[in-house]
């Protein structure tokens, strides 16, 4: 009896130690995710002398906004923020509208040809023409050097379509049937019944598309030569490669024509990340809900 009790206490002590260690490990992991951001932000507002002598870590010692002043006076960088914002806004709306409509139609069991449409989409998840044939198509449609090349080639994600379709299929059928009885056509019932019910999924996948558009640099590298249309990520790439010591592709960076000081790259990194950091806290609440709905059902 006594031994048993003793055992129980021991187990709970062990369990508590485990909880403590677990918490410490998780806090370490979390700070490892955050520290690089804090470091870059701190560096971006530190004077160059502090950066060279590394007098700061995750908070600045002396404040110096000269790099930001410098960046705000540079027309091309501000313009590229505008390009990125425009591409992201229009692209996200375009992608979401197309994805939602496709997913909704695919969720209707009775739709003739549904299996075929489905297979058509799923196959693209396993096999693709690849970079060069896609480039030839975009080129053939005369989209190079236009923003269409940043919107259309990756406009609909097959994966997102399937996930949204599953979350629509998971809704109770009766809701829509009632709407149809009341004289709604499919489009009306889609807008008034289905859309409000899958709001978390809409928020989540809008965030995914928006992040995809905002973060994309390679489509711009591949399709857009005109530096007027370069998104912020492409500028960041040029500046970072250039300040990294000159062993990078010289041809890729010749357009800037000056070597920015180290602290400029910190500020540009902040620029390229800021919109995501601003939106993220508001949307992240939705996506555990929005994602799991689809992923659990497969």
């Amino acid at each position, binding site marked *: 009896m006594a031994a048993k009790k003793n055992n129980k206490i021991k187990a709970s002590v062990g369990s508590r130690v485990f909880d403590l260690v677990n918490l410490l490990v998780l806090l370490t992991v979390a700070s490892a995710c955050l520290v690089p951001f804090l470091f870059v932000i701190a560096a971006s507002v530190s004077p160059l002398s502090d950066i060279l002598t590394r007098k700061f870590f995750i908070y600045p010692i002396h404040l110096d906004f000269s790099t930001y002043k410098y960046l705000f006076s540079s027309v091309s960088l501000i313009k590229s923020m505008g390009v990125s914002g425009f591409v992201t806004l229009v692209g996200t709306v375009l992608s979401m509208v197309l994805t939602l409509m496709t997913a909704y139609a695919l969720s209707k069991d009775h739709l003739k040809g549904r299996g075929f449409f489905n297979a058509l989409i799923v196959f693209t998840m*396993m096999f693709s023409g690849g970079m060069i044939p896609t480039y030839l198509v975009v080129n053939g449609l005369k989209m190079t050097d236009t923003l269409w090349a940043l919107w259309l080639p990756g406009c609909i994600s097959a994966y997102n379509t399937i996930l949204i379709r599953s979350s629509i299929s998971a809704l109770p059928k009766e809701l829509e049937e009632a709407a149809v009885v009341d004289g709604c056509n499919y489009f009306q019932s889609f807008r008034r019944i289905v859309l409000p019910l899958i709001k978390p999924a809409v928020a989540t996948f809008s965030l995914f598309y928006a992040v995809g558009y905002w973060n994309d640099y390679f489509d711009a590298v591949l399709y857009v030569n005109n530096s007027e249309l370069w998104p912020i990520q492409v500028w960041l790439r040029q500046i970072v490669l250039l300040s990294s010591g000159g062993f990078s592709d010289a041809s890729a960076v010749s357009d800037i024509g000056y070597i920015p000081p180290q602290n400029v790259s910190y500020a540009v990194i902040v620029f390229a990340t800021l919109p995501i950091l601003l939106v993220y806290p508001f949307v992240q609440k939705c996506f555990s809900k929005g994602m799991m709905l689809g992923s659990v059902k497969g």
Partner: protein
Amino acid sequence: MNHKQKQKRGWAEAIRKDWILYLMILPGMLYFLIFKYGPMFGLITAFQDYNPMVGVLKSSFVGLKHFRRLWSDPKFLQIFANTLRLAVYNIILYFPLPILLALLLNELKNEKLKGIIQSVVYLPHFVSWVVVAGICFTLFSSQSGALTGVLSGIFGRDVSVLSEPNSFAPLITFQVIWKEAGWGTIIFLAALAGVDVQLYEAARIDGANRRQQMWHITLPALKGVIITLLILRMGSFLNNGFEQIFLMLNSMNREVGEVFDTYVYQMAIKKGRVSYGTAVGLFKSAVCLILVVITDKIAKKAGEEGVF
């Protein structure tokens, strides 16, 4: 004949009844046909000598010439080795981490704290590869990197992480871990949300401690997801993160860093050898497809669910 007519009337009937649905799906289907199946058709370039003046339709056919050249290309083995090295690093160092992290998060009983930690570890996933590369350059660049001094202290010599061939695969893997390990937990946590709480209660009554509960209940609950993800990873093992590697490549580490996609870009876009680049790309996609199908078959033989 009669049957065919019936079939036809079936379509006419379906379109008349569901024309709104067909109208809704039309733009999506056009997208997939043009931007996904169009390029698949364009793969015939791999069997031609592509001439930009006349286009894909009129370029002359050369059969398997480019594939034969691929076999004799000394670069081919190198690329294959590089790809394999990165894939092995990824499977060994990255793949178990999200599972481990999900198990730890699952054991955290304070829901609020759990939520905060989750939001923080998901965050790096939403940052672009350019930003990750940018942070790495500012940390490790040989002249002014913030951690360059620390590293040379640890290794006792000057380490230039960004250009030394030996540090390429570890650097790439480390970037993947930082960016994706947190986000990778989400699918495992979703699977864990479906585990019956009664299982834990029963185990506790039987005297199982936390470690035993994790080992005998939580981990088996994840088995299906783990196997599915492994299959998908097998299929994409030639697809090392192109956007990421493309940013970290430079003339010093190209020898160990060049993978299929970067080579395709180098050949077709930089050197203008469009058909050869397409052939390399087609080879890669075909191998990927075959690998998925094979691993899927094996998983099904072993009694698992598989992907298809």
